[in-house]
């Protein structure tokens, strides 16, 4: 069996095992380990494993992940989700489908301090869900909005996926965060447009509420300035190099903790829950990253990815076509796979492939741009029927809403996502202009 074949079989074996309910991390560890041993011998594998686990888990850069997760947890426990929703409602509430619009606004703001899509969807559902329901919003509209709004959690930095992508491709975390800002804002505006159109074309989907007075608006906004301050401090601080990404996450988590204790009345019990829930997700993610490390080491020594890139280059297809095929693969996988696992499973193969494409961009610019595209495609996977994870989360929380309704409500948002991907493929500057990557 040639090296290329071994690499191919590693991939196939991992996918089959994953399909048969093997935890993704274990499948990657196993396939990667066996492949690595088949190519380099058993002893080198055993030697690598002596230090690999520890060096991957006790890792300064990767510590950003639990700290950002902790920040999101503290923000929820401090009631910042409801403060953000109230403020957004004061501004947008009287619009057509105002509460849904306010939900999107609140999700975007919450996404600025939370790096996870499921967490954003779940926390915003708790405050915005019951209100939209009470006002007789159609189930399709409100579950669709919550599912789509949740994805703003990863689209708007800080974003866990971007951190991992940055580490994997050796790009600056700060540059990727800044690059995600404009696409994130576009996403928010697009989602608001979808809601407006939905309410126009489906009469009776949403009741109107009274316009808030300026006084109410100012009062509600006063409640949320700390959130914006923390976001600005963390993202700008990392980007301008006031502190490292890890320190930035530490500062953000600490500031959010202080706010949660001071303004939100967080006590030890809530703190304990935050720590447990953060650690649980952290362990899950780090185990996948460990698996990915071994998997990509195995793939790299099989030289399958570079060989594949060479063969694809010979195909004489245009770079845009190949890029669209790659994004389609993400979209497809995203339908039934957790986003982080999917990204880590595919990056070892796709990065050499992408680097071989000529878009007239430098290597750094190409990688940052691709990172944003991956981020968006992953996010679309989370809300695209029939298997998007966010859809199931929201539907599980709103028990009496049939899945069909949630599907109906989310279609418009998915269409907008497709438009946004096309925009960013056509105009890389949308991602690259703000961080000034060349």
């Amino acid at each position, binding site marked *: 069996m040639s090296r290329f074949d071994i690499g191919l079989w590693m991939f196939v074996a991992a996918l089959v095992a994953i*399909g*048969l*309910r*093997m*935890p*993704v991390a*274990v499948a990657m*560890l196993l396939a990667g*380990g066996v492949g690595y041993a088949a190519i380099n011998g058993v002893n080198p594998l055993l030697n690598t*494993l*002596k*230090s*690999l*686990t*520890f060096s991957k*888990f*006790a*890792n*300064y850069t990767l*510590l950003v992940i*639990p*700290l950002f997760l*902790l920040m999101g947890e503290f923000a929820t426990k401090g009631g910042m989700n409801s403060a953000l929703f109230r403020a957004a409602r004061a501004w947008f509430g009287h619009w057509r489908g105002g509460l849904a619009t306010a939900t999107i606004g609140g999700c975007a703001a919450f996404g600025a301090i939370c790096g996870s899509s*499921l*967490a954003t969807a*779940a926390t915003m*559902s708790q405050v915005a869900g*019951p209100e939209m*329901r009470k006002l007789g919003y159609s189930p399709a509209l409100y579950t669709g909005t919550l599912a789509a709004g949740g994805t703003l959690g990863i689209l708007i930095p800080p974003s866990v996926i971007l951190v991992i992508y940055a580490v994997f491709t050796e790009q600056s975390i700060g540059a990727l965060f800044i690059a995600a800002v404009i696409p994130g804002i576009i996403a928010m505006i697009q989602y608001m447009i979808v809601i407006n159109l939905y309410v126009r074309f489906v009469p009776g989907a949403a009741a109107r509420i009274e316009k808030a007075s300026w006084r109410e608006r100012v009062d509600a906004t006063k409640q949320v300035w700390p959130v914006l301050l923390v976001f600005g401090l963390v993202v700008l601080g990392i980007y301008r190099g006031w*502190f490292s990404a*890890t*320190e930035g996450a*530490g*500062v953000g*988590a*600490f500031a959010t903790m202080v706010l949660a204790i001071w303004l939100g009345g967080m006590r030890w019990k809530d703190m304990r829950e935050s*720590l*447990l*829930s953060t*650690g*649980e*997700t*952290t*362990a*899950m993610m*780090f*185990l*996948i990253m460990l698996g990915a490390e071994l998997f990509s080491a195995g793939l790299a020594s099989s030289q399958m990815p570079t060989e594949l890139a060479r063969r694809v280059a010979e195909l004489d297809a245009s770079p845009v076509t190949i890029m669209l095929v790659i994004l389609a693969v993400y979209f497809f996988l995203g339908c*039934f796979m*957790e*986003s*982080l*696992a999917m990204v880590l499973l595919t990056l070892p193969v796709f990065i050499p492939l992408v680097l071989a494409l000529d878009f007239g961009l430098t290597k750094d610019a190409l990688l940052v741009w691709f990172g944003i595209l991956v981020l968006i495609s992953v996010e679309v996977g989370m809300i695209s029927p029939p*298997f998007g*994870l966010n859809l199931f989360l929201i539907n*599980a929380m*709103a*028990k*009496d809403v049939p*899945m069909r309704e949630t599907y109906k409500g989310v279609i418009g948002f998915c269409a907008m996502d497709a438009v946004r991907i096309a925009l960013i493929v056509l105009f890389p500057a949308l991602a690259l202009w703000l961080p000034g990557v060349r």
Partner: protein
Amino acid sequence: MPDPRAGSATALTGASPPSSPARRFLTRVSERVALIGGIALLGAMLTMIATVVGAAFGKPLLGDSEIVELLGGVTVFTFLPYCHLRGSNVIVDFFTQRLPARACDWLDAAMNLVFGGVAVVLAWRLIEGGITAYERDKRSMFLQLPDWWGYSIGAIAMLLWIVVCLFIAWERLQQARGRIERRPPGTGAFG
């Protein structure tokens, strides 16, 4: 339908209550161990604040990243058993959703045995690595913290992790044979 337990949704929608005495016991133990990691994470965060504040006043802490790294490692290791016990390791159940629940239990039991096997190899290599670090007296650059401290905490957590894998394999086996009930899914959060 994919189980919302895939991904981190469990933590959000609330896991079902522990059922058997064995599960209750393991839950208690791994939660305690995990809390150590939680406190370590808080410690890492505070160390970083001290560095940032110190640097702002021109007095940066030397070797802060070594403390932070060690504490972060403790966090990840100590949460491995808790995470797996709560069923938070990502699985894809898309292709098996049409199978009867019992078949899935059999598969899960087998996969948890495999998981346990992988965990045994990882723990074995980690312990070997720790012994090497101890014998060669490997230390961190600034603070001279011995590497084997981190390795030993990791090893202890990993032993508990192996136990959890084997326990879940056993639990699924009992479920498959109808000896114990399947744990109920989480309940709705609003409505």
